């Protein structure tokens, strides 16, 4: 199942990062009693922001990736996988990022070609396993499959968002 939400621009991202920092500091100052469950629905925009934050270091410098506005979103259960079909073009490099809300959610990203064969790609890990990314340089133009797999490190299904960039 997929769904889309209004997208947030880069200025919005920076603002949100700053806001996020401020909110986080305030959260640390709170009385522990205030940490009684505050259940909120995870916004896809928030997940997209987390993925975008992971992307930021790759969007500058001498050979930057160009971030697309398109995203994929959905939900995946622990121990299960999802496949995203993507059209990639030879001579370009592509970078995909995935984010899930629970910091214990260990997610993997892998890329397969149109025959279902696993391709070599550079996988990047971040400070917590709920964020992952993958860089690939396709040797042929055509359809590829991005495989999302969630390990059983969490008990609940996780919403996810994938963003990508090219150069």
């Amino acid at each position: 199942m997929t769904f889309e939400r209004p997208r947030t621009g880069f200025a919005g991202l920076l603002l949100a990062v700053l806001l996020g920092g401020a909110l986080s500091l305030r959260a640390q100052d709170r009385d522990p009693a205030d940490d009684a469950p505050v259940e909120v629905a995870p916004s896809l925009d928030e997940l997209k922001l987390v993925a975008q934050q992971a992307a930021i270091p790759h969007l500058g410098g001498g050979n930057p990736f160009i971030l697309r506005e398109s995203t994929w979103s959905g939900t995946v259960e622990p121990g299960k996988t999802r496949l995203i079909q993507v059209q990639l073009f030879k001579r370009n490099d592509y970078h995909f990022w995935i984010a899930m809300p629970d910091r214990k959610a260990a997610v993997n990203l892998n890329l397969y070609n149109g025959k279902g064969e696993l391709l070599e790609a550079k996988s990047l890990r971040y400070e917590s396993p709920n964020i992952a990314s993958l860089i690939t340089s396709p040797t042929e133009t055509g359809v590829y499959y991005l495989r999302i797999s969630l390990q059983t490190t969490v008990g609940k299904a996780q919403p996810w968002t994938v963003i990508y960039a090219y150069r």
Partner: protein
Amino acid sequence: MVMNRSVLLPLIVLGFHAAVVAQDAPGRIDLNDPNLVMVESSAIPIPVEIFTSLDKLGTQDWSKHVVEREIRLDANRSRTAMLFGLVVSDGFIAVQAQDKEAVRRVGREVLRLASSLGVAGSVEQHANAIVNAAGQGQWPVVRKELDKTRQTVLNRMTEMRDDELVALVSLGGWLGGTQTLAAVLKQNYSVEGSDLLNQPDLVKQLKKDFNTLPARAKRGKVFNQVTQTLDHLESLMRADASGAISEGKVIEISLSTKNLVDSIYDI
């Protein structure tokens, strides 16, 4: 699905330290396995994504492919949605050509078409950014704003439950980019460059999306031509065993896409 706010907030302020790691994944997957869960929505590549690859083969004269067309609107919102996609793709071509006036024109047309589709409020800021950035020759900003414009309109239409228009904007954008790509390759054919037209699965997806639209979204003779053209392109846009698309096929793709684009512009 709910989450604890205290889990989410620290995520936002995380530092990201990347390292290359090995991952366990099957070496092969059966793509026909009925148990595979495929994400249905597709991200249509924007023209500049394809042009970036083409430019790596040598400098192209993009200015030859910037065209100024008169856009006459009618009451057919489906046609307007396709025109919107086409105009945004014209914007990407104008950026490749670094043609300030053409980009400004696209910015203005984008706003006019968005008004006709009832989404001007969401697009205005991006359209203005396109015009301003073009004036200053800030081409990466223009590219970004064009992509944002396109995505904003798609998102707004989804919110407004205009799902059929979403598919038509995507189709128009892809068609405009493909027409220009084929025209560039026709003028300067290379086996290496021709592989960029190898998109049979993408055409299949676009065709499927188009065919599932309700009849009310496909009123008008141009939409019969859409069906015929997509059928034709599906067989043409398939590489041979060497990974190339022949010059003859490139010429046919160019002609076929140009005819359809012309029909969409004509009332």
